């Protein structure tokens, strides 16, 4: 392909985010040839557009860095992203489009459990390697070429609650009365049920499980019940800002939860003074030890800059962005190791090998190609930022678990 054609192509592909190596370091060789096209749908509009944006930024950074470092198999990579409007039926249709009409070489899974499961059926029918990074219920992923970029292990709904209880128990003062507040969102609801099992196994008193519908606007009544129950630990299986909304409502009735956990908080929660000491799970944050690797540091720095430029309220890389990036690293590792775009070869290689990515070294030996064990960390809001506090070897230097 002549240089002229490359530029022509770049012009055409501007809409789909194809970026030539604008930040190419001098040492890297310019990738040449027909671009390798990797397709994905993300929730760019609709109910999950907040998170979709974080994922898009992460994907774009990855592809730019990849091209800057010489591309893939010597060829440039073109990132094709389509908007699934946060709807599974559209996600499903568009993956079919990416695969059968746009003829992309490889695909990356979308964001969100419902969209992932809808898209995975398509990947299965067309025998594409399917790497997703946000599936809350990996046990549902029965497709043999599915690979999870998450590090929650095969049964996070059982292991994460135990991890939370263990972390608090390590202070010598384990929670005695736990109240569960759970969204009716499927993956969150499953996690809440996992906490119920963990409490039963441990003999810790469960004060109840308050389930609310997704889209609940008013948390004041739920707050009144939390205050009424006055738990040692409030375990909230929530999405996005629901946690902040409950905290706000609790504050209005003069109540501050002693210990509190939120499942999928929006990053901005850290900036909320009411969320001080809130706990959540983590796979990547813009703090040590995650940024101790050059790749992690470079990604976090670039992400923070772009998020700030886009005007995001919490302009720091977190688990959402980190997971997306890690997913790309896994796919590309498979391509590079097999020196091929053949989905079968990539899948077979990933099945047997370990991959090093910004979230650490991992394999796919767990059920549904998850990690063998739950490798997730716990993070806590301290002074307006998320820091990791559990397990001890992954603790952000200088941080301590605060457990009033």
């Amino acid at each position, binding site marked *: 392909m002549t240089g002229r054609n490359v530029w022509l192509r770049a012009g055409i592909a501007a809409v789909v985010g194809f970026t030539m190596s604008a930040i190419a370091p001098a040492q890297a060789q310019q990738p040449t040839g027909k671009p390798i096209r990797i397709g994905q749908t993300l929730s760019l509009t609709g109910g999950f557009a907040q998170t979709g944006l974080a994922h898009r930024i992460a994907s774009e950074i990855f592809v730019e860095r990849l091209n800057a470092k010489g591309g893939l198999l010597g060829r440039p990579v073109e990132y094709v992203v389509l908007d699934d409007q946060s709807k599974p039926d559209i996600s499903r249709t568009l993956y079919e489009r990416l695969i059968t009409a746009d003829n992309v070489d490889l695909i990356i899974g979308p964001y969100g459990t419902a969209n992932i499961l809808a898209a995975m059926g398509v990947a*299965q029918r067309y025998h594409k390697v399917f790497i997703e990074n946000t599936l809350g219920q990996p046990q549902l992923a029965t*497709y043999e070429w599915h690979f999870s970029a998450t590090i929650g292990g095969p049964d996070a709904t059982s292991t994460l609650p135990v991890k939370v209880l263990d972390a608090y128990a390590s202070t010598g003062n384990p929670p005695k009365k736990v109240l569960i507040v759970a969204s009716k969102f499927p993956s969150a609801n499953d996690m809440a049920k996992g906490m119920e099992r963990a409490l039963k196994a441990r003999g810790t008193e469960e004060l109840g499980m308050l389930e609310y519908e997704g889209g609940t606007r008013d948390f004041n009544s739920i707050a009144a019940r939390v205050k009424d129950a006055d738990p040692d630990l409030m375990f909230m299986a929530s999405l996005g800002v629901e946690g902040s909304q409950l905290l706000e409502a609790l504050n209005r009735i003069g109540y501050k939860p002693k210990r509190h956990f939120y499942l999928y908080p929006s990053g901005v929660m850290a900036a909320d003074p009411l969320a001080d000491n809130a706990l959540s799970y983590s796979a990547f944050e813009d703090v040590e030890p995650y940024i101790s690797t050059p790749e992690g540091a470079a990604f976090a720095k670039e992400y923070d800059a772009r998020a700030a430029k886009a005007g995001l309220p919490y302009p720091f890389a977190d688990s959402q962005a980190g997971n997306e990036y890690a997913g790309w690293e896994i796919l590309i590792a498979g391509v590079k190791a097999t020196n091929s775009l053949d989905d079968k070869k990539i899948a077979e290689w990933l099945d047997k090998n370990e991959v090093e990515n910004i979230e650490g070294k991992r394999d796919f030996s767990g059920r549904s190609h998850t990690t063998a064990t739950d490798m997730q960390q716990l993070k806590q809001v301290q002074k307006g930022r998320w820091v990791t506090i559990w397990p001890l070897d992954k603790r952000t230097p200088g941080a301590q678990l605060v457990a009033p």
Partner: protein
Amino acid sequence: MDMTNSNRVALAAVVLAAVSLLALPASNIAPFYISFLYLIFFWISMATSWTILSGFAGYWSFGHAAFFGSGVYTSATLAAKLGVPFLLTIPFAAGVAALLGTGIGWLVFRMQRLRGELFALMTISITFVVAAVISNTPIDGGSGVYLISVPVPEIFGSQSGTIYLLGLFFAAVTLGITYGIYRSRMGMGLFAIHDDEDVAETKGVPTFRYKLGAIALSSGIAGAVGGVYSIYVSYVTVGETFEVTVIMYPVVMSIFGGSRHWLGPALGATIVTIALYGFPSGPQAALGRGGIALGLILVVLLLPNGVMPSLIGCWRRLAPKQLVPVQVLPQPLVPEPRVAAGAVAMVADTPVLECRDVGKSFGGVQALRGVTLDVRQGEILGLVGPNGSGKSTLINVITGHFKLSQGSVLFDGAPIDGLPAHSVARLGIARSYQIPRPFDRLTVLDNVAMAASFGDGRNENEARRMAAHWLGYTGLAKKAFDYPVTLNLHERKFLELARALAARPRLLMLDEVLSGLNNTEVDAALELIRDIRTRGTTIIFVEHLMRAVVALSDRVAVLNGGTLIALGSPEETMRDPEVVSVYLGGAHAS
């Protein structure tokens, strides 16, 4: 049946399109296009089925998501949890949704108050309740239902092909059903319900049955396509299934395409689906959506009645079809009366209608107190009385619009109180309204034709011919293809009359047909009424204008305060001291 060349071409085109659509999955086309077409078919079925109830009959439903969702979860539960073969689950999905719809209809449609926005409120509430029930019971419970391991038979070698064919099948069935309704008496009845349900019932439309049929079909189709949709997305959750767009899109698509035409919603669904899903944008997705919405606004502003009616309008202008002028219609035109010919112009002693001790109260107000009255075969009975004396109530009681509080009404010796109004109408009792209540969205001709069709049991062609006749009879022939809004008061009164006559009633009740007419018009009307009687129709004539009553009536009945105070020949009655006192005030009271 004769077929013009253009009709043949059209038929050939339809057959060709149908065959190519059927064979499409077997071709080399990328499966994405197959899936995209499926989505179009899906929305065609959703929007069109919504229209059957809401567009045609005017019962605006925001409950389509409830019917759709109950279908989704029926199929998902049966296939994923109970292992029922997928294709078998579809009839169940349709059945459960239709049952839900019919149940709601059965409860709601008998309440006259639950129309318009209250019906909309009812349906939106039901959607929330159905969603909450599914979410809080083991049907879903909050975890969603995953159908990936449900086997789907592969027609043409792929699952997409099967889903596509199911989508095509249901879209075709839906359009077929809707076309059938549109072209049938039921369609005319539903349109009449849309414009004025009470009048429709009085003209013989079995409104309850029609509405129930419409909601059953509407919800059943939504349930069936919901069942197919569950396998298409393969993971169903309450949040996605009952999303606000699922409620809104069928409404938007129908109105956009034109919700009074059988093909309008399909056209709207196709355009809107392509606009919303067909151009998935990348990073600038939000702007793209905004642009599409702007386009939608412009189209709606320019084509306010929907795309389909505008297209038809264009087509008519380009290829003007010869509208058959009413004047030159074949004129066998004197319809044989339903009564024996010998009865013409002769008042017999046999009563046609008997009111026995009829009473009607509204809450605490007695509108009728024990009225006993018989109307003889072939007579003109004048019914007079001051305002509020119960004349209109009596008519409404006889037509079955109001239920009796006491007493009974007999027609030809058989009790008719308790019968629904449309059954009374079909027995041969018709009325006109004091303030004309035409069906505003039907042409003048169709206004009369529907009365001939429902009141007199004519098929459509015959009904239109009869309607043309009655329009000629009442002097409205030139207005046949106009809409009632264009008529003046005099013409509207005669339209009322034509509509009543088209049912070829044995008993005709005229409610102040003369009010508002000038002297010449009154004389013409009186002539017409006499003529109607000579054809064998018995007439109850409610009027304020005493000159007309005396001139026309064989007998006069006088109501006051809900009580019958006099009954007899006009002269006799007008001399009755009580009548005089009622009309001239308390000074003459004895």
